[in-house]
């Protein structure tokens, strides 16, 4: 029997949620960090959306946030011209890295020893977290503000997307641009899938998949509305995308067919990511909320409970919360 998706709404932010990231799977589950224009990034338990803590310290909108694989460190990029590194267990601020302009993107290497930053001053910076006082290595080349910068190919390369409508692949040792992709529109988001080395890029209404090594196009799909972010499922059977029309779209990766679309947000969707186990995906919106969506609708997982029709009308259903047909903010 087909069931209707019940998204779980995570409230707490007071302004638009512009970025989100999951950690890897740790002995304590996996975690989710959200970047918000209210300047207060939050850490949540990844499978339930339960709030764990808020990282306090930034004095401006936080544009980018990330966790390391073990969820022991967090990094944030903000409009106060700093990137900060945090202890993700205690919530304490560990490091403040001053920049010359708004910082938009932060990314840890696999071993969490280096942090990559990028922002409006158009320069990529690599910080050695073991030597925080040392000057960062700098990579220049973009002619407009950098929106997103990621490590890829075993942390040997850096991928950056900027307002100059290019994506560049850099060799981290030579600091040279190995390859450049040009687009007609500004790239709205980028996701790197290490297993399979696939790059997911969105621009205009398009969701495109590229090889992270060669930057060759694998496939592209056009959505009904302008897309701000997309994410590929770890098993590569689906991908999800969201953007201007407030809806989340789910597509079959092999056939490129649109499978489902979900309403729920009250504003454009800025970011969407699959969890590391692929069981759910999280979306962040202009409406200030994060929502968690099931990949397999109706499955028992996290806070979702598979309930058979007979159980719903029995006395045992009292512990369950059955959402009304219309969920209002």
């Amino acid at each position, binding site marked *: *029997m*087909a*069931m*209707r*998706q*019940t998204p*779980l*709404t*995570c*409230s*707490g932010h007071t302004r638009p949620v512009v970025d989100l990231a999951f950690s890897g799977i740790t002995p*304590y589950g996996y975690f989710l960090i959200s970047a918000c224009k209210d300047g207060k990034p*939050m*850490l*949540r338990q990844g499978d*339930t*959306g*339960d*709030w*764990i*803590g*808020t*990282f*306090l310290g930034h004095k401006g909108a936080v544009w980018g946030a990330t966790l390391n694989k073990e969820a*022991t460190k967090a990094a944030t990029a903000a409009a106060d011209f700093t990137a900060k590194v945090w202890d993700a*267990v*205690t*919530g304490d601020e560990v490091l403040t890295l001053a920049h010359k302009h708004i910082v938009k993107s932060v990314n840890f290497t696999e071993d969490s020893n280096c942090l990559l930053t990028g922002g409006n001053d158009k320069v990529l910076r690599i910080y050695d977290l073991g030597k925080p006082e040392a000057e960062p290595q700098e990579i220049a080349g973009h002619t407009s503000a950098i929106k997103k910068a990621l490590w890829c190919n075993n942390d040997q390369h850096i991928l950056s997307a900027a307002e100059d409508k290019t994506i560049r692949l850099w060799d981290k040792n030579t600091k040279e641009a190995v390859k450049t992709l040009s687009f007609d529109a500004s790239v709205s988001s980028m996701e790197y899938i290490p297993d399979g080395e696939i790059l997911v890029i969105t621009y205009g209404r398009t969701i495109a998949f590229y090889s992270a090594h060669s930057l060759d196009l694998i496939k592209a799909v056009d959505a009904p509305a302008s897309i701000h972010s997309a994410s590929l499922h770890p098993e590569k059977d689906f991908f999800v995308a969201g953007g201007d029309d407030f809806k989340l779209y789910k597509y079959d990766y092999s056939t490129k067919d649109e499978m489902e679309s979900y309403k729920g947000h009250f504003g454009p969707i800025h970011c969407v990511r699959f969890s590391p186990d692929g069981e759910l995906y999280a979306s962040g919106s202009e409406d200030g909320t994060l929502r*968690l969506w*099931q990949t397999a*609708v*109706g499955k028992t997982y996290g*806070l*979702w*409970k*598979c*309930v058979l*029709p007979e159980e*719903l009308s029995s006395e045992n*259903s009292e*512990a*369950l*919360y*059955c*959402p009304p*047909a219309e969920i209002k903010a």
Partner: protein
Amino acid sequence: MRSSMKTPVSVLRLPRGPDPNSRGFDPNSPRFVALCPTTVPSSSSSSSGSADEEEQRLRAELRERFLRTLLLMTGKRVRFDMHEHVRVHARFGASDIDVLTLQVSDLETPLGVQREALLRCQDVIACSFEAREGARSVATV
């Protein structure tokens, strides 16, 4: 099949939201205890520990005094000394939770009396008011 005909998936509860009184990162959570054993407070034996406690106690006391001053100010006519040598009088209503904005009534400005207004705390240097007849209190924001 129309989506309104399908049964919505049930949930055990909604995700827990932030605690308004704290920044979280519960020191009693299994993860915290396992990964940060040295930060679990032991019985105050170290001298640096008691210096921290003393500072914390003083800070808490100052904070409490500040909050009580705000309460005492409610409904009273207050003089606000602000940047650029601005000095205005108004009736103090309330502060927001982060003490970023002050809500006032009958704000006397060079352009006239503003029935209702919001003052930005960043702009305020000090507030001064009569706590009781003849006794003036000054709070620096």
